[in-house]
């Protein structure tokens, strides 16, 4: 089976899962609490206000109709309207998305980079003090609540040392605006990239400064998984026959370590990156709240506090679709790297 047919099959298989996911979210948010509008208003509100909301948001129609409207809307990129001010949720989500994306990317870089590096060192010095301390480090990191770590960092680096900012994404007014070439505006929403597109190093450095603590927090907590995974796989792979055979042919140590041992141990790391992405998003919620980072996670928490249930639904759906997409990409990448899977 070639790569292309594998991709096609995989995409097809994802469909039912996505359908299920969407149905789930619908069930949880619309059906579970009974009447979301009532829940929103809590105390007695005028029946007219409630009716108005119902009509505006399409919540007065029968449940099945709502379900189909929901699905149809998704196909158009319509995630519904917020209970707070009836504005389109999709818009709010898309403006918050780049912030979370940027955080996720840098956190993942730290988690994987640090995790793999420590994992390889750990495996090379098997059973030594270095090996054991690295492993303990990984375990302890995982046991730390993300927001606690974040707060400690804020305390040390922000309050005590005054080195780094404790909240927000960048100094107000310094948001990079990307590049405009002859009427075409290119901007990714990722401040680090946009500032480079703009050619503004100051903004770039500032963006990094604000990005540093949140991504370090999230990255550290997640690196434990990668340390353990890399270590285990490297230990296994380093003793496999084809590695010894490669050494017997006189291949250089670096070639053997990276081209043979690591390349085979790497594939599970790739899969794990995909799996961890889900955990990353979950952790992002806490990190964004701690650091006042204007992303999807903080949006969710905000909306919960406002009891804006339609927005909650929209946000959660977006989360789910995002995770499904990333899993798909990871699976395809895996098939690209490991030809055996395609058969």
């Amino acid at each position: 089976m070639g790569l292309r047919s594998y991709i096609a099959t995989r995409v097809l298989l994802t469909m039912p899962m996505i359908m299920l996911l969407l149905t789930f979210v619908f069930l949880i948010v619309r059906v579970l609490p009974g009447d979301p509008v009532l829940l929103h208003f809590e105390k007695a509100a005028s029946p007219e206000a409630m009716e108005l909301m119902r009509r505006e948001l399409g919540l007065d129609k029968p449940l099945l109709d709502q379900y189909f409207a929901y699905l149809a809307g998704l196909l158009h990129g319509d995630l519904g309207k917020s209970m707070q001010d009836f504005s389109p949720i999709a818009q709010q989500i898309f403006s918050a998305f780049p912030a979370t994306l940027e955080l996720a990317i840098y956190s993942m870089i730290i988690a994987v980079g640090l995790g793999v590096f420590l994992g390889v060192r750990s495996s090379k010095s098997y059973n030594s003090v270095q090996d054991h301390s690295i492993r303990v480090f990984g375990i302890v990191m995982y046991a730390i609540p993300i927001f606690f770590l974040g707060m400690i960092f804020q305390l040390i680096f922000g309050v005590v040392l005054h080195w780094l900012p404790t909240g927000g994404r960048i100094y107000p007014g310094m948001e990079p605006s990307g590049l405009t070439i002859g009427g075409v505006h290119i901007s990714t929403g990722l401040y680090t990239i946009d500032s480079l597109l703009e050619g503004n190093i100051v903004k770039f450095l500032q963006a990094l400064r604000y990005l540093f603590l949140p991504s370090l927090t999230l990255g550290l907590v997640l690196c434990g998984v990668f340390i353990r995974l890399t270590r285990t796989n490297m230990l296994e792979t380093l003793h496999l026959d084809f590695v010894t055979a490669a050494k017997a042919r006189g291949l250089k140590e670096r070639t053997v370590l990276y081209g043979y041992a690591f390349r085979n141990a790497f594939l599970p790391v790739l899969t794990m990156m995909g799996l961890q992405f889900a955990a990353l998003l979950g952790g992002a919620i806490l990190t964004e709240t701690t650091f006042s980072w204007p992303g999807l996670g903080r949006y969710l928490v905000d909306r919960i506090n406002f009891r804006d249930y339609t927005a909650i639904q929209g946000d959660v759906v977006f989360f789910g679709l995002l995770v499904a997409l990333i899993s798909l990409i990871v699976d395809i990448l895996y098939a690209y790297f490991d030809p055996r899977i395609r058969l």
Partner: protein
Amino acid sequence: MPLLEVDSLTVEYWTRRGIIRAVDNVSFALDKGEMLGLVGESGSGKSTLGHSLVRLLPTQGSIVGGRIRIGGKDVVGYSEEEMRSIRGEKIAFVFQDPMTSLNPVKKIGEHLVELIQTHKPNVSREEALRFAEAALDDVGISTERINDYPHQFSGGMRQRIMIALAIALNPDIVIADEPTTALDVIVQAKVMDLLKDLCGAHGMALILITHDISVVLERCKKVIVMYAGNFVECADSVSLHNDPKHPYTQGLLRTVPNIELADQRLESITGSPPDLLDLPSGCRFWPRCPQAMKVCHMKGPSMVELENGCCVRCFLYGGLEQ
């Protein structure tokens, strides 16, 4: 000067239960282009000996004494980098299990090109590819398959690829450690013949390590029989076959079934190889030896050289004087 000279080599393994001396004070020599068969049961130390020649012992193993001279230079003292440069180029190793010896994510052509370019960095990629194709051709693999992955080949073909990798750079010595044990009988013969022909054609010396004595008798000029870490007999294959001296060798030859005889019972050597942590006193073979004498329980015999150049480690042939 012989191509390979092993002098009083001793290899030990560290285990939880104690130190195992897998190779005990062995010596032999190999000339250019010579084909040597090394025969022994599992646990005899033959595989360990093979691995120590390329210094690829597992972490628990180490060479604790003796010298290995390749081309006059002692490689026991070589650094890892020095060893690395001669592996593959001067001395090659063919492993036992072809199913797991190739990198699953590299095309077989890549295996060869990488090997060539590591040892000969000035060779361009096109040249290396042509070399690779020639090597594949030598072992009987269609060059059209140069871009296939290992899992697309059968066991026998993978072993041929391993052989191609071993001979690609025309090493002086090829060590094959049970190269056909993992293959079925018909393929075995083909692969063995391939090894022999290639080594003969390119003038490479071959050390064939196996537990199957019949395989080496057909193809090797000289044979060494190993038991529990010691060499017990070395002779040229003709003499060994017609007139085996050591009781163990005699036992081994008896175990080879003869297809021409009808109504033959399968023979075996009574007993089993000794636990290397708990060796018998005196000669290591005496518990299983039909010709054991009293002295065998008490002293271990040393190698005795016989008139025709063969050697035997057995009191039946001398050595009682000490």
